[in-house]
């Protein structure tokens, strides 16, 4: 089974970190994983996105064109990525920041009040963690504990409070379903 994931949003929403944490968590759980950032180095402006593959087989290409799991964090990414999702795919979107509604009928739409919940926890920045939490639960792909471990690998310089806040956000997301 191969899960192909795209995470998209504005720069600053922790898109890359989310992707790396997902991949790391997959690695910890002994799956084949890859992470790929969108080309950007010779392009300025616009939105950020990244591809993550978590699979029971070696990863063919780390570039995901048609995800079966999609996380959308901002308005412009909704329009751009909704059409790319595989039929029967999962579509998580950040309802707090996105006014429009996804329109496809052949995919599972999961609206998440990611930023609202994050603000509740005291820090909008952890909206991405909320998303990872609910993703883990909904897909059964990863254990919550693994995500907690993985975020510690990513934020090696963060202080204890921040790490715990991240944990909380993961938990809140995980508890949403």
């Amino acid at each position: 089974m191969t899960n192909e994931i795209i995470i998209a949003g504005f720069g600053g929403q922790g898109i890359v970190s989310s992707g790396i944490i997902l991949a790391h968590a997959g690695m910890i759980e002994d799956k084949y994983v890859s992470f790929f950032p969108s080309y950007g180095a010779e392009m300025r402006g616009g939105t950020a996105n990244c591809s993550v593959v978590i699979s029971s087989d070696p990863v063919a290409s780390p570039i995901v064109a048609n995800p079966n799991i999609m996380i959308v964090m901002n308005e412009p990414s909704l329009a751009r990525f909704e059409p790319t999702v595989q039929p029967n795919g999962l579509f998580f979107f950040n309802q707090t920041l996105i006014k429009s509604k996804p329109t496809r009928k052949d995919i599972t739409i999961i609206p998440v009040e990611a930023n609202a919940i994050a603000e509740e926890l005291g820090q909008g920045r952890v909206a991405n963690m909320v998303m990872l939490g609910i993703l883990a639960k909904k897909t059964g792909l990863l254990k919550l504990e693994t995500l907690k471990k993985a975020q510690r690998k990513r934020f090696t310089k963060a202080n204890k409070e921040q790490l715990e806040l991240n944990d909380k956000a993961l938990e809140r997301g995980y508890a949403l379903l």
Partner: protein
Amino acid sequence: MKKIFGRPAGLTEIIQRYCPGCGHGIVHRLIAELLVELDIRERTVGIAPVGCSVFADEYFNCDMIQPPHGRGPAVATGIKRSRPDCVLFSYQGDGDLAAIGTAETVHAAARNEKITVIFINNAIYGMTGGQLAPTTLPGMRSTTSVKGRDVVKQGYPIKVCELLSGVDGAYYLERCAVNTPKNIIKTKKALKTAFKNQMDDKGFSLVEILSMCPTGWGVTPVQSKQWIDDVMSKYYPLGVYRDRAKEEK
């Protein structure tokens, strides 16, 4: 009511892909204004560098060419010698002009090639992600000098106007900045002289422009503007470095 300031006809309608607060856009606009004001847009061929402004070939509303990294002055020479009636400008960043393109720059100046070179000194490699440029200040951080430029290991910056002052062929050299309206007005004047020199068949004119790169410097646009005043222009003093028109008088 009449529009007294607005997008000049020397720019295409395309929205530029530079970061917020990037100096490239300001210089683009100044050049575009001059293309119109000097009535040269229809006989100009512009040269885009390799750097963030590689896309300049989409932005200027005139014939454009995009050569290999650093070779703008050579390509400009090829065109100018083939079509002396054309007005040539080569738009280049500091990596493009002062690193890989050093020889082409120095020798175009030595030949007194009748072209206009516009040199954006933002002290960093923007496009490739903020690495050390030949113009990065001592102690300044970049992605390849995370602890700040160490002059013992990484050497001293290249000061392009000072360097070219040692070249007899160079006709006109000035260093400006685009961090304040006042400096921008001066920059436009310098650019105008640089174009006029070419139109009058005088020779090699280069305008170096200290320009903000908030992304590469890791600061806000407003901070970047200030940094040019506080630090950068101290290291790279503004002013005219060569003006053979005046010397010849």
